């Protein structure tokens, strides 16, 4: 069984605000039967058209999808639309005392339905889901913008996490490389905005080699090992880093890409911008 909090189980067993509102001011529907969870959210504003007076939902999904929907309705009841628009998936998860990592997409579904309902009220559009920008994950219909957003709002650092939060990459897996690039881009932006990157101090040759080895052990090898591969440091000649792939990477056709996008990118980030990574051809 999942490690659900008591609050999740309470909202699952006794969901609040279930049902339909006739003549609702805003209606948002996200997800689908194919995806395994779907949420329809409806709200009615007060007489002055300012605050959410009534809100109801219908959910097809697992215990945490039902609990997330129920929690969301309790949270935003009485809020102005501007306040409601600020609610993030993390707020929903926090309200429930947390969700298992693999279930975070349930909270994202809630936030998306709320946004769709607000958009429906302000624009009158009833599109079930407005796909803005490029669709990255075709299995679950997730766009680049959505992936960027969950990555940014939840400070995600891996493709698996993105899958847990918005399902992208959880079907055929063909888009995992693309997701990896988005995660990397957001991470770089995040780090650039937090710490005005301290100038790297000058390293001795020994320090440089040690740092390269440490970076490989900490940042690179665990990632490759997840796919059954590995990499070994062979030599360091000035700014040239000679490596050799092991395991699945050794006969992987995209090893070249891995070398540039993963190994070189990580080493440049953690050790020095001028490093060139080469595969040992001996």
């Amino acid at each position: 069984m999942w490690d659900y909090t008591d609050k999740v189980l309470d909202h699952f067993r006794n969901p609040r605000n279930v049902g339909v509102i006739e003549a609702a001011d805003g209606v948002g529907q996200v997800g689908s039967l194919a995806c395994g969870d779907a949420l329809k959210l409806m709200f009615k504003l007060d007489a002055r058209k300012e605050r959410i007076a009534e809100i109801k939902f219908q959910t097809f999904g697992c215990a945490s999808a039902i609990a997330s929907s129920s929690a969301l309705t309790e949270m935003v009841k009485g809020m102005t639309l501007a306040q409601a628009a600020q609610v993030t998936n993390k707020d929903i998860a926090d309200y429930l005392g947390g969700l298992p990592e693999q279930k975070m997409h349930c909270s994202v579904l809630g936030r998306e339905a709320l946004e769709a309902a607000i958009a429906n009220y302000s624009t009158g559009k009833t599109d079930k889901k407005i796909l803005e920008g490029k669709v990255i994950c075709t299995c679950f219909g997730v766009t680049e913008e959505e992936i960027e957003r969950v990555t940014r709002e939840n400070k995600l650092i891996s493709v698996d996490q993105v899958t847990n939060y918005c399902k992208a990459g959880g079907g055929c897996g063909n888009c995992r490389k693309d997701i990896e690039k988005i995660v990397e881009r957001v991470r770089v932006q995040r780090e650039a905005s937090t710490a005005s990157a301290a100038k790297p101090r000058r390293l001795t040759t020994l320090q440089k080699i040690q740092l390269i080895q440490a970076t490989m052990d900490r940042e690179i090898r665990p990632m490759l090992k997840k796919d059954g591969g590995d990499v070994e440091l062979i030599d360091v000649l000035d700014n040239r880093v000679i490596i050799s792939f092991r395991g699945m990477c050794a006969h992987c056709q995209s090893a070249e890409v891995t070398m540039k996008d993963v190994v070189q990118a990580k080493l440049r980030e953690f050790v020095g911008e001028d490093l060139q990574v080469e595969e040992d051809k001996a």
Partner: protein
Amino acid sequence: MKNIYLDNNATSQVAPEVTEAMLPFFKDLWGNPSSMHYFGGQVRKYIETAREQVAALIGADPSEIVFTGCGTESDNMAIRGAAEAMGRDMQIVTTKVEHLAVLGPCRLLKEHGFDLVELGVDPSGQLNLPDLRKTLSGRPSIVSIMWANNETGVVFPIDEIAALTSNAGAILHTDAVQAAGKIPINVRKTPLNMLSIAGHKLHAPKGIGALYVRKGTRLATFMVGGHQENGRRGGTENVPYIVGLGRACELAAAHMNREMTTVAALRDRLENGLLASCPDTMVNGDRSHRLPNTSNISFQYIEGEAILYHLSDIGVAASSGSACTSGSLEPSHVIRAMGVPFTAAHGSIRFSLSRYNTMDDVDYVVAHMPEIVKRLRALSPFVK
């Protein structure tokens, strides 16, 4: 609270007779069967008795039984061991509805350069035998096809499959983890090469399995470094569990005829009761070729995990092929391979019974299920 266990295809209660048979091997008879003294040596004969008991359940010669750590190990030993012994000229042939313990090794071999064919199934979960015949005609093959499916209970026509493979000169392994102890198996009549058994599916504990290896089957040693099991599986024997598996097989053989009717009657009462009391439900899998204990039912428009939690709240344990419970984001590969529509795939529930279930158990579920289904459908945006 009630405690109704209907998840026996996941794991089963250890039979009290099995526990009792095992206890002496934790207390007094803890010697190493390989030792050159009376203390260890006296243990050996119990292993050989267990080997006879396992062999008797499936009509094998005791020398053809290798004890392993679990069903997954048996499957790996058979598939990878045959591939290593036979080489890459062989193609690997399996089905899309196998347990991951079979699909895993097959797909690993594909990564290692073997050609792999995964045969599909029809909406009832049955194989198309002409497809298999055609696949076998091309190349020498190592075939791994399950006897009975763990999720739907669908039983494959293994006699016909074995006739095809033996005519084609192929090696046939079958994962009989769900079938063994539930329906008759006789390897003297079915010309297959290897067959996997897992103890905990037939009322022995977890941590013990067996692989039947027909005499003359070429198989590379999987676990090297010990002379045990005739050199086929090194490692000091897990004596208490081997004894337990032997006793469990003996019990299964003794109970089988009766259980095939009594357990099937309970299963049918449950299944027909649920179909009658809950609208928009359907049975997944070929009902006329099925294990006597398994029923896989889809409750349309609602999701499996939510159903399981409500069942658990009233003391009923079952399992689901929904995405949320399969540990991935998509419904079970078995349900998908059968082409079950999404409206039903996410709401599939597997009930798997055993000799320990009663009519009261079944009637309790039939009585309470409509309320659970009604509650969840009241939440569902897909119910009009």
